[in-house]
């Protein structure tokens, strides 16, 4: 049985203004993620991939279909029941600048989720030192404010916060898109290492096929609120079947002038053929 099962999920946002039709962000999406597995979710802006992540986190209004976690339906929980799930499902957001409260020290940010569960402050502080070590931040980082850290380091803090409750699933919403190239690959390697050590599963949302290929076991491609293709990472990111995935793949430039010239020609040929 898989860890997370999404079945025919529909998310609608109320229309802006009196009696306007609601906006349907997800139009019947089905997905599943196994224990310890990374499912990469690729799509362009507006495809609904972030909405899917937010629905799993209980931050988006589900108007149809179900989300099952560990066999239990979680898409209809109320706020209090949902809070109990924070042991199980955690998040790392895209923007390391707004996902950490600028007025709180790193230690406060990291102890907060522990203290709400009734852990003692001494125990929480011990755990924070351990977490900082896990994400390779210096032990004295706890006394500092988020703005004293670079983008990559802030994302490590966000990862530490997600790990603090030992979750079994982490929703990662474009966690490396705002980072520099060299930082990006180091943070991705940290994600992989943590997964291999703890067996946590990732729902890894990104627009970058190269990133998704690097970290995912399986990949789902979203287009306009629907999943158009799912499969193992190698197939989807190298020999995709769906024309949209092929277009996406051919649009990503390769860092090699000759191969890129070929890819460009292929893409133009594909577009010609369609027209």
């Amino acid at each position: 049985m898989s860890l997370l099962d999404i079945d025919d999920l529909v998310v609608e946002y109320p229309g802006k203004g009196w009696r306007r039709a609601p906006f349907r962000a997800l139009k019947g999406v089905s997905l599943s993620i196994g224990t310890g597995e990374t499912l990469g979710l690729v799509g362009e802006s507006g495809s609904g991939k972030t909405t899917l992540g937010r629905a799993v986190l209980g931050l988006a209004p589900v108007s149809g279909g179900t989300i099952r976690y560990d066999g239990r339906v979680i898409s209809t929980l109320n706020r209090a029941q949902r809070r109990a799930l924070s042991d199980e499902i955690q998040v790392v957001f895209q923007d390391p600048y707004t996902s950490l409260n600028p007025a709180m020290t790193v230690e406060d940010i990291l102890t907060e989720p522990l203290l709400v569960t009734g852990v003692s402050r001494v125990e929480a502080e011990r755990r924070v030192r351990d977490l900082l070590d896990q994400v390779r931040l210096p032990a004295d980082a706890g006394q500092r404010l988020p703005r004293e850290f670079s983008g990559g380091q802030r994302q490590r803090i966000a990862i530490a916060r997600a790990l603090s409750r030992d979750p079994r699933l982490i929703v990662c919403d474009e966690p490396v898109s705002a980072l520099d190239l060299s930082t990006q690959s180091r943070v991705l390697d940290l994600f992989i290492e943590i997964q291999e050590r703890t067996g946590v599963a990732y729902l890894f949302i990104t627009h970058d096929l190269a990133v998704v290929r690097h970290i995912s076991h399986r990949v789902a491609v979203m287009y306009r609120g629907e999943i158009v293709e799912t499969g193992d990472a190698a197939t989807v990111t190298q020999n995709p079947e769906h024309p949209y995935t092929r277009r996406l793949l051919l649009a990503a430039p390769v860092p090699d002038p000759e191969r890129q010239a070929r890819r460009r020609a292929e893409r133009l040929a594909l577009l010609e053929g369609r027209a």
Partner: protein
Amino acid sequence: MSERRQGLTRRLLRDPVAIVCLAVLGLIVLASVLAPLLASHDPNTSSLQDTLAPPSGDHPLGADGVGRDVLARLLYGGRTSLLGALVAVAVAVALGVPTGLIAGYYRRGFDAVASWTANLLMAIPAIVVLLVVLAVVGQNMYLAMVVFGLLMAPGVYRLIRASVTSVREELYVDAARVSGLGDARIMRRHILPVVIAPTVIQAAQMFGLAIVIQSGLEFLGLGSASEASWGAMLNDAFANIYTKPILLLWPGLAVALTVAAFGLLGNALRDALNGSRRASNKAPAPTTPAAMAGPAIHIDGDELLVVRDLRVAYDQEVVGGVSLAVRRGEVLGLVGESGSGKTQTAFAILGLLPPEARVSSGQLLFDGQQLSRAAVPKLRGRRIAYVPQEPMSNLDPSFRIGAQLTEPMRRHLKLSRAAARRKALDLLARVGIEDPERVYSSYPHQISGGMAQRVLIAGAVSCDPDLLIADEPTTALDVTVQAEVLDLMRSLQSERRMGMILVTHNFGVVADICDRVAVMQTGQIVESAPVAELFANPQHPYTRMLLDSTLEDSAPRTRQEEMA
């Protein structure tokens, strides 16, 4: 939290206006509190022989129209005024803050009802209500101030609701929810600290307002007869204005000083608060401001732009001696990570750096001419054009696309309105926009990001520039749109034989469009080579590290594990 608050207090104490205001208010409060000790007379005991007595040892400020001691009344009056204002502000804050928090955080039903009530209350004329209240319940100023607080509460409510609505969109509030924090805790820890500052500022302003209104009512004789107050003093002084005008001075001065001090303190608080936002987020400083001038550049006379030894410094040097050359019809890629100085270099060439930047360049040659930096603005837009990273923020939201496209053409090319319109429509069609007429008459918010970037490219090439400087032109776009925009830039560039400098961090984009590449690290060009050579045989360790970090060629994870 505590660090930020300390910073705010420290900044506030550096502002002389704030210090004076705090001192004045401190004195007034102290004098009012210590009134029984400072005043030698009872404020309400009148003695007929002292009527309108001049200042003397017994009455330091003289006596009023019914022989009461002016100093005593002034001191005790401070108590009434300050206490009354405090009541009003306390009621306004106590009602406005929690309702604003709840409405902003939960929205929906409560928000609708509360906002409707607030709007209704705001529409009621305060003075009329106060006069009615005082007429009905008798002369109870504190009750009047409670009612006035009620009428000021919607102002607080709206302010708090607006700040809460903006904070709750922040990702850290979502993260707190996912962490399992209850709503009460999220409000206390993450939302309340953000709304404290605007509340304090608003409270200072309301204090002043409450004192004015209260004095006004008392001046009209609606205050309590048994309590001294500044307004009642004004009333008495007004009755004796021809015989003893000096009596108006003391209460007038007290009201004016208090109100002005509260008002200016509010302003100083706001300034101190804005200062805290300005001070953060500095770009990482370069670590090695070495004297190395980067790889030499070869010049054979066909260069469109030659820059030698360009330096840009703020507190520290961010570009340290960059030399580069672009030929006609050549695309030069300027690659590096954030903080490498690539954007600063591009902006320095465009002459678009903020005034606090110190720029020096050994030499700037454009089209064979020696160019002074003062001459650059004259070429900008006409011979040197610019395509920005964020297409949306580079279009003015209050003007139609057409107006923004034709204005530079009419200015630089001296085209007539009709000719500029024709050319703009041609350009829009050229950059691949399917319905140029519609886009021409649209506002920026009506078009997509990719479309906006096409519009900006159309604008950049509208005056037939020789050199195009593009700063991460595709970073904000989706990959499929990025590919189309790169195709467009490539075809425009080759069709017009423009020289182009493309600033980017993406080696895929470099491989796609560039002829030459310069790699920047901490303000310097560490390697520069034709594109094929750079990818095939990178020389500098930093270039090799960057190329190794690209994930494009990494094996898919599924396969890795099957092999293992």
